[in-house]
Structure formats: C-alpha cells, structure tokens
C-alpha cells in the first residue's frame, strides 16, 4: 500500500514537472513573440554592414577608381594565372614533353560556353626550315624600317603605313625576340623608338591616329602619301590596341610608354554607347568628320577584343549577330548578315581575322588569364574558326585547289584584293576593294597558310606548309603568296604578311601570344583622375566582372551539310 502511495506521488511530481516545463516554454515563446513583434512595430533597427573604404561595397568616386585592379578569371575563380612561356632559346629541351594538349577532352561547348576545338594547335620547337623562314620574315623589317621614325613600311620600300601594319611590325618584333632572332637591346631600341614616335603622331583632328602615316617623317598623309588626313580606322586601332597590350603585359617596363600613347587619344567617337566600333572619314563637300560603323563578322570581333583589353565595352561589336551562313562544301560558313546594298560595306569572309584571334588570343576572352590552350573561353569564335578552316580543307579535298584565303596585296593594279571564302553572295570570290571580280588574283596566302598550319595541326596544313615555307626572297622577306592559277608567286612583300608569319611561328613555340598582366595598377587607369579628361575622352575604369564581354554560344554544325 505504501509502495502504491509512493508510486502515485512520483507520477504526480512527474506530471507537475512536465506541465511546468510546457508552461515555461509557452511563456518564453509568447514573451519572445510579443517582444519581437513589439520591436518590429515600435523599434525599427537597420541592419548595418559597415562599408570599408576601398572595399567591395565602397562605391568609389571616379577619383579613386583607377586603383582597383582589373578583374580576371584568376581572381574570380581562384585559379592559377597562366605563366608567360620562356623565350625559345631559354626553353629546356623537354619543355614540350609536358604540354597539356587536352587530347582526351570531348569536343564542344562547356557549361560556361567555352569551346573545346576538334583540332589542336601545332606546338614544338622550330625546325631549321621554320627558323629560316622566321629569319627571312624578320629581314623584311630589318630592310624596311625607317631609321628616322622607327616605323616600318607597310609595302616594300613605299614609305607609308597604317596602324594595322604597324601592329604587324610590333608583332614581328616581339616574335623575333621571343624566337631569339634578336636580343633585348635590339628589342628595346626598336620598341622604344616606335612607341616614342607613336606618342608624338599628329592625330586625325585631335582624336585618334590617322589612317595612314609617312614612315620617313611620321607625318599624317592621304592615300597618295602626301600630307593630309583621311580619317581613322576603328579596326586598325583595334589591332594596334591588341599589340600594345601584348607588349605591355610581356614587357611591363614598357608599360608607361605604352600608356602615354593611349592617354593622348580621344575615344569618345570610336565606340558607341551600345558598343559598336566606328571609323571616321571626311565629307569632301562639308569637310566635316563623318563617323561610320566599321567592321564585319570576323574583323569586327577581333577589333572589339582589342578595345576590351583596355577596359572598353564593345558589347555589340563582339557579338556575332547579325550573321547568316552559306553552305560551301558541306560547311555552314558564317558571314555578316548586314546587307552590303544598304550598309555599303562588303561582308568579306577571309581567314585572317580568325587567325589573329587564334594566334594572339587563343580564341579566349580578354579577361581570361587561366584557361589552358586547348580550351577557348570565347567559344563561338573558336567554333566559327574551325568552320573557316574546314571549308578550305574541303575545297582542297574536293577540287584539288590548295586553299588558304585572305586579303593580300598584288603587284600592279588592282594592288589589293580580298581573296575571300565568301562575299557578295558568291563562294571563293576574289574581289578588289571597288568590287571587281578578279579570279586571276586568287592565291594561297602565305600568312593564311602558315597561320592555319600553326592553329590546325592536320595533314592538310602540312601541304600548305610545304607550299609556303620556302616561298621567300633572301633579300626582302616572305612573298605574299602563291597564285592559285599557276602564275607563280605573288611578288610583293608586306609588313602584314611577314608579321603574321612570325606570329604563327611564335605560336608554335609559345602558344597564345597574349600573356596576363602581371602588375597591379596601371597608369592607363589612374591618370587624369583629378581632371575631367577621362570623362571627356571616354577613358574607362578597370573592368570588373560585370563589365566582362559575355561568353556566348551559337548552334553548332554536327555533320557536314551536302
């Protein structure tokens, strides 16, 4: 009985404790709810996150924005930065034994719209024949560089040049140094003299470099090489910006000289707010400056990347649209969709601009300082380039014509031809700048052939290599090309041809030519912060992640379309 009483007492205590616990919980909950509600109603406190000066949340005034670093993929994804390769003569013998070619990677787009190409670039040391070609190509610049200005003639010893051709001279100089054809004193002497000349160039109406300069006097001239002015070319400037960035990133000690050139230029009219590139010309009747959109699919995107390397935002210029495709030998060849009859600008499809993207950028975005050679972060550019290559190989296979098409000079009238894969609605259309069809001037372009040989390691490019690698004059450099219809060599020598050939040979040794910037702040971004010059001339701030050009993809061609 006593035991039963004790048991009842224990049960009651237990219940009391439980009830008490529940009551306490209810009371605390109710209190918390009441207090929280009261606070939310009567005491509205802000969540204050302190902003640290210069930190991520600090909306910096223009005065201070120059100091922030340009954001690249290595910062955002915390990946190691690609390291600049050594000069060829400083490479260990087994250097190429450890190159990652990504041969096991599947072809196609990645989730980030990067692209793994079907083909791989050709990599390795230069053999004897290639070194001879490199030396001969460099001979052009030794022969035709003007001592007075440091500018190289664009064509033979005709003393005039453009920004495009001057960029080719810079490309040749960098390549010659990296391939150990010249040493650093010669590199510095040439580049410093050239950069100094570029800094003092008389600009077109105070804006940007004129289209043409006299190489002996560095005076701005017209197409007749007489004192005068024509306008400026957005595409030429884009290529120049690419090579000035390459020089600055590879040789930071030249950075101030490079920046000083650009800080004289006025970019207000060359890139529109929506990101299109413009050129300038003079209206002959009113003498006013006229700005025309410049660039078509291929060249336009290449030039856009040049501007983007310096912080500009050529969003529309970098997009492929509007584009169409033409089925040629089973390949959907992309071409610019803007109607020449309306826009009065031809939509030439040639190899050159794709080559330059491949050789200089590795088909990467400008903010990409991490991806390996086999991965192209500017995916659609790489995919389009593969089509440009494929259609030329297919033509060779199906017709027997060796094909490596590009724009090139010719001896005598018409002096220059667009030797295209497609233009004006016709495949394999060889036309002059004024539109005449001149099939007799169709040629295997030397620069296109060796450029393709460098970027596409295939049996077909071996054939091109054999056709071109000994196509030189020991006194003047590499010939412009080999006529398709059997008229022999295109007997003319140009800076662009020899510069691109040297770049192609450098690409075999070092891969993508553009290397990451290794410094921190740049004068280009910090200068004139205390004045309104940056605003007036549209100098950009260091690009952040939100400023990156978008990586896009377009539908791919799964199989050949016959």
């Amino acid at each position, binding site marked *: 009985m006593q035991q039963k009483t004790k048991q009842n007492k224990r049960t009651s205590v237990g219940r009391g404790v439980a009830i008490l616990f529940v009551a306490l919980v209810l009371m605390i909950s109710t209190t918390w709810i009441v207090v929280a509600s009261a606070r939310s109603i009567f005491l509205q406190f802000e969540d204050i996150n302190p902003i640290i000066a210069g930190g991520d949340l600090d909306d910096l005034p223009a005065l201070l924005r120059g100091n922030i670093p340009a954001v690249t993929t290595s910062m955002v994804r915390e990946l190691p930065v690609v390291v600049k390769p050594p000069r060829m003569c400083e490479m260990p013998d087994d250097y190429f034994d450890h190159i990652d070619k990504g041969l096991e990677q599947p072809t196609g787009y990645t989730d980030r719209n990067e692209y793994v190409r079907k083909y791989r670039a050709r990599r390795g040391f230069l053999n004897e024949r290639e070194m001879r070609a490199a030396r001969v190509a460099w001979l052009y610049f030794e022969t035709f560089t003007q001592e007075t200005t440091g500018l190289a003639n664009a064509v033979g010893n005709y003393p005039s040049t453009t920004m495009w051709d001057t960029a080719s001279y810079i490309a040749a100089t960098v390549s010659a140094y990296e391939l150990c054809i010249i040493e650093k004193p010669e590199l510095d002497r040439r580049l410093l003299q050239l950069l100094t000349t570029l800094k003092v160039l008389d600009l077109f109406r105070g804006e940007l470099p004129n289209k043409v300069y006299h190489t002996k006097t560095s005076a701005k001239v017209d*197409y007749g090489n007489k004192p005068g002015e024509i306008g400026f070319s957005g595409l030429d400037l884009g290529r120049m910006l690419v090579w000035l960035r390459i020089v600055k990133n590879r040789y930071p000690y030249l950075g101030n000289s490079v920046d000083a050139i650009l800080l004289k230029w006025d970019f207000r009219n060359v890139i529109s707010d929506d990101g299109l590139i413009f050129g300038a010309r003079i209206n002959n009747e009113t003498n006013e400056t006229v700005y025309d959109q410049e660039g078509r699919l291929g060249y336009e995107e290449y030039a856009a990347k040049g501007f983007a390397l310096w912080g500009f935002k050529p969003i529309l210029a970098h997009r492929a649209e509007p584009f169409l495709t033409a089925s040629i030998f089973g390949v959907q060849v992309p071409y610019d969709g803007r109607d020449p009859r309306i826009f009065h600008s031809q939509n030439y499809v040639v190899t050159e601009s794709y080559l330059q993207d491949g050789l200089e950028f590795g088909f990467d975005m400008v903010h990409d300082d991490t991806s390996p050679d086999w991965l192209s972060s500017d995916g659609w550019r790489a995919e389009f380039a593969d089509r440009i290559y494929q259609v030329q190989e297919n033509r060779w296979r199906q017709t027997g014509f060796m094909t490596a098409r590009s724009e090139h000079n010719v001896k005598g009238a018409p002096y220059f031809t667009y030797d295209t894969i497609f233009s004006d609605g016709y495949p394999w259309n060889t036309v002059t700048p004024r539109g005449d069809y001149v099939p007799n001037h169709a040629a295997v372009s030397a620069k296109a052939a060796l450029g393709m040989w460098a970027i596409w390691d295939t049996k077909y490019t071996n054939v091109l290599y054999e056709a071109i690698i000994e196509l030189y004059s020991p006194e003047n450099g590499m010939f412009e090309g080999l006529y398709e219809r059997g008229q022999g060599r295109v007997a003319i020598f140009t800076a662009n041809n020899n510069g691109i050939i040297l770049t192609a040979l450098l690409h075999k040794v070092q891969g993508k030519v553009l290397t990451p910037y290794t410094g921190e702040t740049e004068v280009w971004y910090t200068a004139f912060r205390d004045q309104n010059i940056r605003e007036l001339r549209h100098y950009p701030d260091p690009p952040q992640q939100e400023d990156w050009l978008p990586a896009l993809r377009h539908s791919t061609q799964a199989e050949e379309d016959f």
Partner: protein
Amino acid sequence: MNKIAITSVIWLVVSAVGGVAQDEASDFSPDSAILDTTIPFAIGAREATQELRGSYGWPTFQEGLVEGVYFRFDPDGYARFSTTPRLDTDVFEVICRAKTVSCIGRKGIMTVQLNGQGALQVILDGVSTGDELFIVDGITELPLPDRILQPLDSRLEALLSSGGELVIRHASAEVARVPLSGFLAVSTYLRWIVSGQDYSIFPRGWPVPNSQSDSNAGALLTQSLNWEPPIRGAIPVLAELPAEEPVNMVSQTEAQLLIDVSQNQERIHQLTEALNQLTKASGFEQAIFEQSSLLDVPSIMQPVVPTAIPETGGEMALEHIETVAKTELEVLSTQLNYLMTEIGLDSASALALLQQPNELLTTPRTNSPSDQIVSEILLELKEKIAENELPLETTETVNPEIIAPSDGVIDTATVRAADSNVSAQDYLLLSQYFKSVFVE
C-alpha cells in the same frame, strides 16, 4: 679597292631591290590622277568610295552602265568594262601608263589603243600573215580586210563597235575568238581620257550626262565644278577632232545594218534590174543630177530616189522626180533631219553643210567628212564587188553593167558629176547601197 667594289655592288643590289619594291606601290596622289571620278562618263554613272584596308590606293572610283556594258574606272585610268555587273566575264580592261593618258584596252588577244593621230589601232597577239579575220554576229560572218590591223577608219571602227565576235582563222581553223562587247565603250573611254574628259568626243547616241534626257539625280550629285585635267599638255588634237568629224559617226544600229548588206541582196537584185531599165531611158541620169546638184550630198544619200523609182519606164520616172521636188524649205528640213538623225552630224555641221551647196559642188570636197565616208563606202563596195569579197549570193546578183556601163547616158552623167567627186557609177552604187541599208 676590292672592298669598295664589293660594297658598291652590294649597294647597287640593295638599291635595285629597293627600286623593285618601290615600284610595287604606285603614286596615288591627286597629281597622278588623269581622271576626275566625279565627272560621269555616262548618264547614271556615279562616284563611289573604295574600302581601302592598306596604306595606299585610290579612295574613289566611278561605276556605271553604258552601251550595254558595266564599267568601273579609277582616277589613274585603270578601268574594266564587262557585260556583267560583277565585271567578271568577258572583261575589257584598260590600263594607263602612270601619270599619262597613254592607255590601252585589252581583251584576250586583242589590244586597242589610240595612235598619235587619234585613230584607233587594233593589235592582235599571235596573228600572223595569212590569218583570216572575220566578224561574226551569230548568223552572218563578214570577212575583214587586212587593214583592220592598221589604224581604223570610222567605218571599220563602227563595224567593230557593232558587237559580235572577232574570229581569227588560220588555214580555216579557228585560232582565236574575241567578243567585241564593250569595244565602243572602251574606244570612247580612251578618247575621253585623251580629251581631258571632254563630252564633245562622245559618239552619236551616247548617253551624255547633263543632256536634256539626263534626269538622273545621282549623276548630278557627282558633278565637279572645278575639275581641270591634271595632264594639261596631253590634250591632243583628238579633243578638237570631233568638231570636224564625229568619231563613230555611224551609230551602232547603223553599223549593224552595214553587216546586213548581204541579207538585203534580194533588194539589190531588184534594184539592179530597175536601174538597168532606167539607164536606157534618155535624160534620166541628167535629171537626177540636176536634182542632186540642188540637194548636194544629202540628196545623193536620199534613199527616196532609188527606192521610189518605178519599174515601168523613163517617163514615169521623170514624173516621179517632179513629185519628189518639194519646196526648198521642206527639202532643207528633210535634209537637216536626215543629216542629224541618220548620219549623225551635229546641228551646226548639218546646217553649215546645207547652207553651202554651190560651193560644195564647185570645189573639191576631199576634206568633207561626209564625202570621206561616201568615198570610203564606195571604195569598199567596189573592192568587194571586184574582188568577190562580198558573200557569194551578193556578188551573184550584182549586174556587171552597173560597174562598167557602156552607154552614153552614163558617160554624160559621169562628166556632170566629176566636180563632186562622185561618178555616175558611184552614184548608182551608192544608191543601191543605201537602198539596201535603209530599209523602209
């Protein structure tokens, strides 16, 4: 010494190499231009700008369509003419020596150029003695005389300008064939260059810019008010030549009719018979030449006389002549119209010609352009008849008596016509010719 010699040799070699390279790029300064691309070559032509990627070149050119061919030319004279707008096939290319108006046109084996006297000269590569030349228009085939390779007279030039193809045969085997499309445009272009872009050299029927029919606004936009040819000393006698003798005076249509002579053989045959009858009619020739002395050369060319000749006898013919004799004003009007529309003379030349009939009759007119053409046509016809060069059917129908008549009437007429350098035989031949050419 050897070192100096070697250095000199090296320097020479380097200089030579440099010189070669220098030649690659021509001078594109305005001083080197021989043409102003703002001045249209024909109605509808327009100046356009070139998309130059390199450091030199001509920033402008002109393009258009004339006489059935598309063309483009640069300020240095370099031009292409083709029947297709791409200028891709059947191209006539014109190339000029730097800074000069010395230009040549090329198509296949054919080269055309102007000689010092302003006459067109055709050069055919690979043509040797004994080769036969023909002009073929698809159906008919006309043999060309050897003098086609000498400076061309206006008739031959008109013949080549009429189109068709130039065929070269060796031992009956065709060795070359050159389409003549663009010949007229190129020859006119060559003269236009030499004349400093003077419109007065344009042949009859040319779509001259700024003429009354030029309503093309685009052409007006390309007008240059202050253009002067840069090569002033190079404007030769050719610039003045058209005032005396319009080049290509016979239009392309008329030239085509020349080719059709052989096709009109039936008419010639009928005419020959009619003339045979008429030559027997006393006084007929005299009546004709009395009439022709009033009307002078234009009346000689009048096709109405032979075509209206009835076949029934001399009396009716004389009656007919009386009906033809209109009032002087009407005659003058008809003649003027004929000279301008059919012959191609400008109004001033035609009027001057009509206002001096007596002088023309009494003085040798060897310098008259119309007479020259008449003489040339006669000579040509005679040669062809005599040498059996006309197509077979034609020679068969020509009555030998026309060529060498024996009766006294003809002799009298010949004497009467001596002053005008046109014999009765010539007159008859000419009448037959125009009868055959100008089909009513």
